[in-house]
Structure formats: structure tokens, C-alpha cells
């Protein structure tokens, strides 16, 4: 590369274009690529040596079986008891299972009046063609309310663990240094194949996810599976185009408010239905004609709320794992 020419001039030469094409920064067909290709992760040899030394010292201490007979005995004992316990548990469970009612039989304790009522009057009482959806979102809705909060609290704990906040003075978190810097600076490699495929697939995946959510009361599916599909689509988009593109429409604020509104709607709607149910009041929510898309009372809106929460949560998990924030 020529060093005699000033930078501006050099940028116009063929050599510059050629070399930048060679390094993958520029594509004659797509134009400038956003970022440099990812460098291979190279461990700092000094760090590596230090870690290995520490590691060996620790290993010597922990697994120094020759000098530490007590420890060895304990390890052996632990392994032996664990294996014995598991074998015992397996034998116990197999014996138990051999005494359980036969699988596939129509007459057994499980198939009692509860299941019968769900099947026979589920369509009438909940308006949902998919009996499972009717069951989890109407008959046993309290479980499902708890379930969505399990997801919520798991996100909160992941945020606590992995979100890298700046401290009071605006300095970055000291952990940022320890996290692999390569992964944060060089975002996903701008791969033309991946981008082309993603631009095909992402809309299809997201539309399919929306179909699953909206169809939850009519066929297999529902808020959770549809939300997971949409989340997978968003993750694919992120991988293909990088954080700078997704940040245009999805930041932490978006996530916070979507989650807040969906969960609040869920809580309030279900509170209303629990309250009216327990106090034997008439619920004003119409059931609609079974089979139509706008039917089955609260099930469709609840599915949409759950779907939004799940999609955002899945994307948030991925973003947290990837770079410690959105």
C-alpha cells in the first residue's frame, strides 16, 4: 500500500478499493459493508499463561489425590452414593410405573368428569375450538397467569446478572473489560448469504408466528409458541444485520413498555374475570361465534399479550447474552 499519497487521494485509487474488497469491507454488488469481518478470537498469551497457571494450581489443590486421601475418599463416596441413589430411584419408579393404570386405556382415573366437561361443554363455555387453549386460559387461568410471571421474573434475574450498566459517573462497568471485547465491537459478520436468506425468511417466520398466535383458539398453537417463533425470527434478523439495525426499532425502552402493557393487560383482564366469577356476577365479555377469528371472549387478546411478552423476552435473553444490553 502506498504511503506517499495523502489519505483522501489514496481512497480514490483502485488499490484501495481492491484491498478493501479483499478484506471484506466492501462489496462491489452491495456497496460498503457496515463493519469489518470478525477477527478470530486470540487469547492474550500472557493472560492465557496466567490462567493456566492458576488453573493448574487449583487443580493440584482440588484434585491432588495423592496427598489428599480424604478428598479422594469423599469423591468416590459421593459418586458411588449418587449412582446407587439414581439406580434405586430408577428401580423404584419402574416398579411404580408397573402398578399404574395402563396407557392408552379409555377407562382410568384420569379420564373422569373433569376431562369430560372440558371436552363436552368447553366449546360452549369458553368459545374456543382448541380445547387445550380454552382450558389453560379460562378454566385454569390462574396457573397460566403464574406461568407468564415465571418468564417475567426469569428475565429480571437475567437482567441482574448480565446487564452492563454505566455507573454514576458514566464510566462503563468494569466487567465490560472482562467480557470478550471482540464480541461487542465487531458485531455479527456481514455475510451476504446470511443476509439474503434472512431477508427472505424473517418475514415468513414472523408472519407464521403471528398466524400461530391469532389462531391459538382455533387450532394448535397459542401465545407462547407463536411468541417463541417470532422471537426466533427476531434473533435471526439480529444475527444477519447486527445490533445497529435492530436498535432502530427495538431498544430496552421498547421492551420495557411492551412487557409492562402486556402483563398489565393480562393481570387486569384476568382479575376482572376472577372477580366476576367468584362473586357470581355476570361477565360482560361476549363469547362470539365459535370458529370465527373474533370469538372466545378473552382468549384471543390474552394470547396476543402473551405472544408479545414471549417474543420480546426471547429477544431480550439473546441480546443480554450477546452483549449485555440491547
Amino acid at each position: 500500500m502506498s504511503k506517499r499519497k495523502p489519505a483522501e487521494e489514496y481512497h480514490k485509487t483502485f488499490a484501495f478499493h481492491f484491498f478493501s474488497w479483499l478484506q471484506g469491507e466492501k462489496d462491489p454488488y452491495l456497496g460498503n459493508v457496515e463493519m469489518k469481518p470478525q477477527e478470530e478470537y486470540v487469547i492474550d498469551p500472557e493472560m492465557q499463561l496466567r490462567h493456566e497457571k492458576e488453573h493448574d494450581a487449583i487443580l493440584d489443590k482440588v484434585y491432588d489425590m495423592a496427598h489428599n486421601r480424604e478428598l479422594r475418599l469423599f469423591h468416590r463416596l459421593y459418586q458411588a452414593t449418587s449412582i446407587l441413589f439414581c439406580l434405586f430411584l430408577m428401580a423404584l419408579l419402574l416398579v411404580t410405573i408397573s402398578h399404574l393404570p395402563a396407557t392408552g386405556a379409555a377407562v382410568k382415573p384420569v379420564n373422569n368428569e373433569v376431562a369430560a366437561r372440558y371436552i363436552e361443554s368447553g366449546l360452549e363455555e369458553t368459545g374456543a375450538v382448541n380445547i387445550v387453549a380454552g382450558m389453560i386460559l379460562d378454566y385454569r387461568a390462574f396457573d397460566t397467569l403464574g406461568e407468564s410471571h415465571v418468564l417475567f421474573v426469569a428475565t429480571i434475574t437475567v437482567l441482574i446478572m448480565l446487564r452492563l450498566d454505566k455507573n454514576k459517573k458514566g464510566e462503563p462497568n468494569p466487567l465490560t473489560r472482562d467480557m470478550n471485547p471482540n464480541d461487542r465491537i465487531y458485531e455479527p459478520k456481514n455475510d451476504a448469504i446470511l443476509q439474503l436468506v434472512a431477508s427472505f425468511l424473517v418475514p415468513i417466520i414472523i408472519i407464521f408466528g403471528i398466524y400461530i398466535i391469532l389462531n391459538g383458539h382455533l387450532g394448535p398453537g397459542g401465545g407462547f409458541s407463536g411468541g417463541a417463533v417470532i422471537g426466533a425470527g427476531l434473533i435471526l434478523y439480529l444475527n444477519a444485520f447486527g445490533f445497529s439495525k435492530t436498535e432502530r426499532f427495538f431498544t430496552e425502552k421498547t421492551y420495557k413498555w411492551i412487557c409492562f402493557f402486556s402483563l398489565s393487560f393480562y393481570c387486569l383482564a384476568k382479575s376482572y374475570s376472577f372477580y366476576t366469577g367468584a362473586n357470581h356476577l355476570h361477565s360482560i365479555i361476549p363469547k362470539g361465534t365459535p370458529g370465527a377469528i373474533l370469538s372466545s371472549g378473552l382468549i384471543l387478546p390474552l394470547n396476543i399479550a402473551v405472544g408479545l411478552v414471549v417474543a420480546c423476552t426471547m429477544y431480550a435473553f439473546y441480546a443480554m447474552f450477546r452483549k449485555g444490553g440491547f
Partner: protein
Amino acid sequence: MGPNLWINYGEAVAAILFCIGFTNLLLQTNLIKKIIGLNIMDSAIYLFLAEKGYIAGRTAPIVTDGITSVEAYINPIPSGLVLTGIVVSVSVSALMLSLTIRLYIRYHSLDLDEIAAQLKKEGR
């Protein structure tokens, strides 16, 4: 031994998988493998539960052609319970994985005993 072991082969498989997962959780030193063992254990329970609802020769509980007789569909309750359970298991594994990342960044190890020894050495 009771009479139904060979008829209940699905449940038996579930029990075996449960024990494999359990053993993994107890004996693996690597945290990632522990987490996989945990997921296998959870899946085994869900398989067990789903087998409970299955009735031979009947179809999935989605009303078709307006037929709402009990003889047409399998039991919908276990499916609903498993659906709830899967959500719980995915949340738990995300949480465990995030803990693993933090531990690795701090201690460069995935072995809990080793980390405990490092902690002892640091004296904190």
C-alpha cells in the same frame, strides 16, 4: 412388579430419562452439561405427563365438525399442564446459562469445585 410395565413402556422410558438427567445433574462437573441434564430431566417429566393423557385411537382435542363427545378426543388436561411446564423450564435454563456466563467471566472455569477452591484461595 405390577402387571402393566410393558403396556406402560412410554412411562418407563420417561422414568429412565428422568434418572439419566438426574445422574447428569449430580455427577457432571461441567456446568453446561449439568444444565443439559436438567433440561432432559424436565422433558422426561413432561413425556410422562403427556403419556397419561393419551388414549388409543382418539384425536387431538381440537373440535372438528362440531363433534363434542368424549369418545372423540384425548384428555386435554395433561397437554395444558405440560405447556405451562415447558415455559417454566425454558426460563430456568436461561437463568442458569446467565449464571454460567458470569461465573466463567469471573473465574474462567466451569467446574464448581474448582471455583470453590479459587474462592477459598482468595479468602473472601
